[in-house]
Every structure is written in structure tokens, then in C-alpha cells.
């Protein structure tokens, strides 16, 4: 089947129900998107499909044929994604970093739909798990982006 990922077209051979995550990581070699739970619980595998955040570990690859997929590898090619990354660096968000690809994707999706989200909207959108406890730094970064801050 044919996938559109990061503005490029890929031919992949996989069963229809293979999770998008494993096609991205193993078949296409893009390992920035992470496996954390396989159950859509943690959000480490978050990618954008047509600008919406989805959890690639439970997304059958057949369901995203013909859709525009964005992974963390191309996040800075997106104007909002680039701002999110800059804010993440500015606020020194990452600790171990394993969940941060997904966090950056979730923040990018939020700001694409809602450029100036309220605190409640931020709380509703930023639900990915982080075991290192970077939640306050994430909140500060997204809050600043929501206010159109320096990042």
C-alpha cells in the first residue's frame, strides 16, 4: 500500500491491521515515534494524521492510506511544530526524553486547531504520560505558545 508520510510517498508491504507505529519504526526506519504501551494509554507513539493527533500503536496502517501523516522527524518543517520545538528547548522540558516526541506532536496538534487554547483546553489536550514528571515544564511551554510568546 501507499503511505504519505512527511510529504513523501512510501510503498509499504504490511497486513492491513499492522499498527502504523511499527510500519513507521521498523519498515521505514523512523524511530523518533516511540512504543510505550501498545494500548493508546501513554501517547509516546503520537503522530499527526491530517493534522489530528492519533496514537499510532493502535492505528491500523490501512486506515491511513491516502491521508497525510506527520511524524516527529518532520515536525520542524511545520511552522507551528517548529515553534513547539523551540518552546520545548527554551523551557528545557525533556528529561529522559522518551515521551517527548509524543508530547511535541500533541502540542502541535492542539495549537493547529486552537492557536490560543485556554488552560482547560491545554489540560484536555495534553494528556500524554511522562514518568520523569516534566508536566509543569510542558504546561509552561504550551502556555507560552498559547499566548503567542517569544517561542
Amino acid at each position, binding site marked *: 500500500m501507499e503511505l504519505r508520510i512527511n510529504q513523501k510517498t512510501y510503498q509499504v508491504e504490511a497486513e492491513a491491521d499492522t499498527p502504523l507505529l511499527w510500519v513507521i519504526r521498523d519498515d521505514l526506519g523512523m*524511530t523518533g515515534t516511540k512504543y510505550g504501551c501498545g494500548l493508546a494509554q501513554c501517547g509516546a507513539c503520537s503522530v499527526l494524521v491530517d493534522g489530528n493527533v492519533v496514537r499510532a500503536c493502535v492505528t491500523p496502517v490501512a486506515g491511513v492510506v491516502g491521508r497525510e501523516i506527520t511524524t516527529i522527524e518532520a515536525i520542524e518543517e511545520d511552522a507551528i511544530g517548529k515553534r513547539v520545538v523551540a518552546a520545548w528547548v527554551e523551557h528545557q522540558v525533556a528529561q529522559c526524553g*522518551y515521551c517527548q516526541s509524543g508530547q511535541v506532536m500533541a502540542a502541535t496538534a492542539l495549537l493547529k486547531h486552537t492557536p490560543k487554547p485556554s488552560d482547560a483546553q491545554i489540560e484536555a489536550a495534553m494528556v500524554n504520560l511522562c514518568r520523569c514528571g516534566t508536566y509543569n515544564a510542558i504546561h509552561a511551554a504550551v502556555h507560552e505558545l498559547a499566548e503567542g510568546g517569544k517561542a
Partner: protein
Amino acid sequence: MKRRIETPQDLLDLPAGETINLSRRRFVAGTAIGALVLGFGLPVGVPRVQAAAATAERGTQVPAFLEIRPDNTVRLLCPFMEGGQGTYTAMAQIVGEELDMDPAQFVVDSAPPGEAYVVMENGMRITGGSMSVRMSYPTMRRLGGLARAMLLQAAAEQLGVPVSELSTEPGKVLHAASGRSLAYGQLAGRAMDLPVPDPASIKLRDPGQFRWIGKPVRRLDAYDKSTGKAVFSIDIKVDDMLHAAVQHAPRLGMTVGNMRNEAQVKAMQGVHSVHTLPGAVAVVAERWWHAKRAVEALQVDWQEPGADNTLRVMPADFSSAGWLDHLAAQTGPARDDEHEGDLAAAMASAKTTVEASYRNQYVNHGQLEPPSATARFNPDGSLEVWLPNQAPDMFRADIAKRTGLAPEQITLHSPLLGGFFGRHFLYESANPYPQAIALAKAVGRPVKLIWTREEEFLRDVLRPVAVVKFRAGLDADGMPVAIEAVSATEGPTEALAGKQGEKIDPTALEGLSGKAYAIPNKRIAQIYVKGPAMLGYWRSVGNSLNDFFYESFLDELADKGGKDPYELRLHLLRGNPRLTTLLQAVAELAGGWKPGPFTAEDGSKRARGVAMASPFGSHAAVIAEVSIENGQVKVHDIWQAIDPGSIVNPAIIEAQVNGAVALGLSQTLLEEAVWQNGAPRARNYDLYPILPPQRMARVHVRIVQSGEKMGGIGEPPLPAVAPAVANAVARLTGQRVRSLPLDRHTFS
């Protein structure tokens, strides 16, 4: 006499005690283990080399650590693993300060195993116990100083001037008299071939002149970790590799019997082969997804452990609740860890006595990166393994033992850790690398094995549990004069050893023992109860439970004696200026000590609690503010004052406090590994919730630098969180909680 080391054989021939110098360039050419990242991995591990290097001064083999490149960037091979705690950045600050090189110019990777990298003052090399910076600080500073001296010497030779006429600025050597300068990158080739100077000749920088140590230097890994570029073990890819997944025996110790549908599974899409491993079955496939699906389809007749079993067997009737009741029923014998004064007499003459029994819950590590390992046998018979670890030398030694290979035939790669919190020590049965190595050997190709989250929850080692029985006596003024704590428990260190040592396992009682409060009569003791669960270290280890017990019970004493818990602590710490200052600092940070209950601006009724802890060479004081929302505890704010003596990076410390608070809140509010019928109830985050962002508190940090000996940072901010919250809840609701997590209790 200093000898130049040209070849691995020279190292072998080195007499004990020799100060050695490694020729970096010759090593690259001469060594057969050029597969290491930088090409100058040391062929250590041979007993003679270890004997020789062990008596040399630690951390003096400059070329083993540093590569200064022509573009004036510096590659540092770090003795410690980076798993979020910021050690790569801290080491760049420390080395850079004395090398005279901006830490931003550093690229840091973890060093391979080897005696050269054993830099901790306790003679170990592990990443744990919050020890990396505090145990290697002088040595790593000196390493930078040694490298700077070598660059100065090289510049003197190149410019034909005496060293005394030279100075450095960040990244370059200056000759003021002639106005000439040479970048470090221009000098490195010559400098790294020079003998390493006498370590005693290095004069370290005056701390008053520090440019980077003590400053909020930005993390070196922030960008890569924000863009998916950071590489973890799970991301490793090597040519021609196959993927593997395993299904473990439902209970540890069980063995593989008949695989009922092996033929069907072998025929499944993408399957390369099906394997039997000790206590597990595995499927190797061209794709991991295929391996996972196939191995989960395998129907195995698991056999009860045989007579030859060497593992800690998980019984079919084991339950975590039952085990805690078993601990609570223990009456002894107990061994004393601390015994001061005359407890019996003090209790007999006390005006009031208080008794309480506390217990905690098992918890999992829950690091976001599931364990994995990649193994490759090379044509020359050598083995390369990529794996998460907190102690590379111990892992390599274990691999050598398992495979029969000599240590120098084993190359260990230690990628970034996707969280660790104590998860990646050498735990029998809890690491995937023995399986990956066995599978790579069996299929004759490299194999990457990833454990699913479900297999991880099945085999992760647990944070220990304890039941602690307290007794205390108060005098006529309501002041504590006697305290006794007897803990029925098994500490993680004695659990790993499989037996009680000659001395009490400090990781069992830390946080009960070692309290600074001036209570004249006390006894802290342990009833050792060996259990069936596999135990391990969890961030802040024994303190994570014991400070909850002790600091909660101390508030009970304050209540019983009619004392304010903050004032009582101040009183019990009189004559201890360091902890008095710290306690006052956290109160000041919180706008003064206001226990409440009070009504907040949003109309919610709130209260505050206070607690302290002194783990891993540092001291911490915490105030928590809570309310009850829909019967559940909500923690609004955590104020934490922490005194690690002196510091390297205040920004990273603040991040570590945030992280420790998050994990501390997680174990306080909601986290619990429940076992029933010999199996964990939860095998994923759906039934084992970890702290979600909605339940994080605001965190306010004050760093107090007392100037005392440097303490740890990764773990010390955790233990005081739980008791501060529990004490606030008791203040607010009148309910004294003696077990965690709080979500198990109902509040109104």
C-alpha cells in the same frame, strides 16, 4: 616513571601502580576493538590490567575520556548513563570548567565498560544512588585540568615558548606576549599523545571564578529529545538483524513444557523461528510486530519449577495483600539498627504512649521505554550488545559468565535510557539481554528483542513493602522522649543477595534509621522476612517508604502531644543549624507556615502538611497543600527546600525536584502493584495508572547551599512528598492514613 602505552599488550605489561598514558592515535590503529563509538575503547577487563589500573589514580587516563576535534568540539565519554537526570550536561560543565571549554561545545556519550572509567570515590562505577556527580566531582574536575595542562604543553612545544607564558580562554591557548593563539582543536593531536601530567600538579579553579559550575547551563540533549533524534536502546538497528518477542512463564520459576501449537505459529506470517528459553518462549521474525503476534499466539504448557530451579519461585497463591498481612503478623526476632538511650524505661515513665502500624504498597518502575536488547555475534567470535543499563561493568561481567566469552570479546553499548528510576540494574530474570544473546546465537544473525509492556509488568522487579510497628512515649509537656520502629521487611539489597547479610541491609531501613530528630531514647529494628517477589531499587529506595512512615507517625505524636508539627520539628532539630535553616527555608518559600484548614480563593477547603527527609547525602523539607475533590485527594502545591551542600546545575536540580515530586505523588496518590494468585493484576498502564498530568501539583523549589559535602539530587527530593501530603490530608480531614496509595481511601 611514566610509560607510554602504545598497544593493548603494553597495558597488559604494565606494572601495578604505574601512571599511564594512552596514545590515542596509536590505539585507534593498534586495537582490534575499533567498533567502539570513538575507536579508542580500552581493552580492559583482563585481570592484570584491572589490577594495574585500579592502583593508578582514578580518572587520569585523559585520552580515554576526551576527544577534542578539529572543529573545537569535545567528545566526552561519560562514566555515567544519561536517563533524564542530566548527568551528561553536568559532566560537561564539570570537565569544561577546568578544561576551559564551554559545555555547549561538548558531545557526550556513555563510556564503555572498563577500569579507566571507574571514577567514583567509593571505587564503583554505577549510575544510581544519586551518586554520579557527588562521587566523581573532584576527579572529573581534575580530568579537565589534566587535559588543559596537556593542551598547554602541546602549545608550548608548538609555539616554542615556555608553558609559564601561556594561558587559556574557552577553547584556546593564548600567548599574550606575541598575541598568538591556538584553538584546542589545533592542538589536540599533539596534546593527546603527551604523557598525562602528575595529577598532583593540577591546580583547580577557584570556585569563585566558576563560569559554568553552579550555573543553569542548558541541557546538551534538549533539542535532540524534542525532535525524536535521541537514540534509545529500543531504536538500535544493525544490519541484517531479526526481531524477537517473548512470552514469559506466568510465574517466575516455571519452565517451558510442550508448545501445543508450535507448528501453526511457525507458519504464521513473517515468522523466522520459534525458540525455547529459560522460563520463556520466543519468536524471531523479520518484523517485531510479527514476532509479537506470533509469540502471543503460542500455547505453552508451563511446568511447575523443578528441583534444579535456582530462581525465586513465585507461588500460585501469592497475593500482595496476603503478603502484607503476613508481614503484619511477624513478631520477631528483630535485629537492631539503631538503639540509643533506655527505651523500656522511657516508655514506662512516659506520660502518654502512642502506637501505630504503617504499611506501603508494591510499585513498578513504569519507565516509558520498555526493556530491549540487541545482540550481534561478529565473525571473529566477539559479541556486541546494546542494552539499557546502570552499571556497564557488572553487565559485561554477567554476559561473560553466561556466554563463556572473555570480557574483552564483549562490546557493550549503553544508549540513552528512556527513564530508569532503578529499573536497569542487574536483576536476574528482569533483563532481556540474556534472551537476545541466546537468540542471536541460535539464528546466526543479530537479534533485537523488545519486551512488550505486558511482559515488562510481568517481570519488572518491585519496590519492597514493609509493615512498620511504631511505639512512642511523650513526656508531660507532650514532647516525644522515646520512639521505636520495628519493620517487617526485606530490603532490595538483601533480596538481590537472596539472604540477609552480616550487617543490616541499609536499603531496608534508611529513612527510619538516620533521622536527625533529638529523641533521646530510640530503637530502630528489622524483622527480616524473605518473600517470593523479585525486588529491586526504586527511586529513593528505602526512603521512599520509610520517610512516609516515620514523618507521618511524627505528626501523630505532634497531634497527641498537642504540638504544631512544624514547631515540633524545629524543637527536635534544635542545635542542628543545617536542618533548622532548611525547615525555615521551606516555610518561607510557602509564605510562612500555615497549616490550616483554611478556605482558598476558589472556595475549596485546604490544609498543609510538612515533612523532611535526609536521603543520599542531601536534605529536603517539603510542604504540601491539599484539598478533597469528589472524595479524592488533590495536591495543589508542593514547596520543597533542598540542601545538597553545593551544586552543579540549579536548573537541572529544579527539574529533578519536579520529577521526584511527580513520582512521589504517583506513589502517594494512585500507584500500586497488586498481585493476586501469583500474578500481577495489571500488565499495562490501563490497570496500573501512573501520575497523569491532571494530578501533578505546582512545584516550588528553593535550593539551599550549606556548603557541606555534596549530596545527591535525583532521589532526595522524593521521600518527603508522601508524608507531607498525608499530613496535610490528616490536618484537613482528621483522617490519619497509614497506608498508600491515598486513592484506596475514601475522604469527605
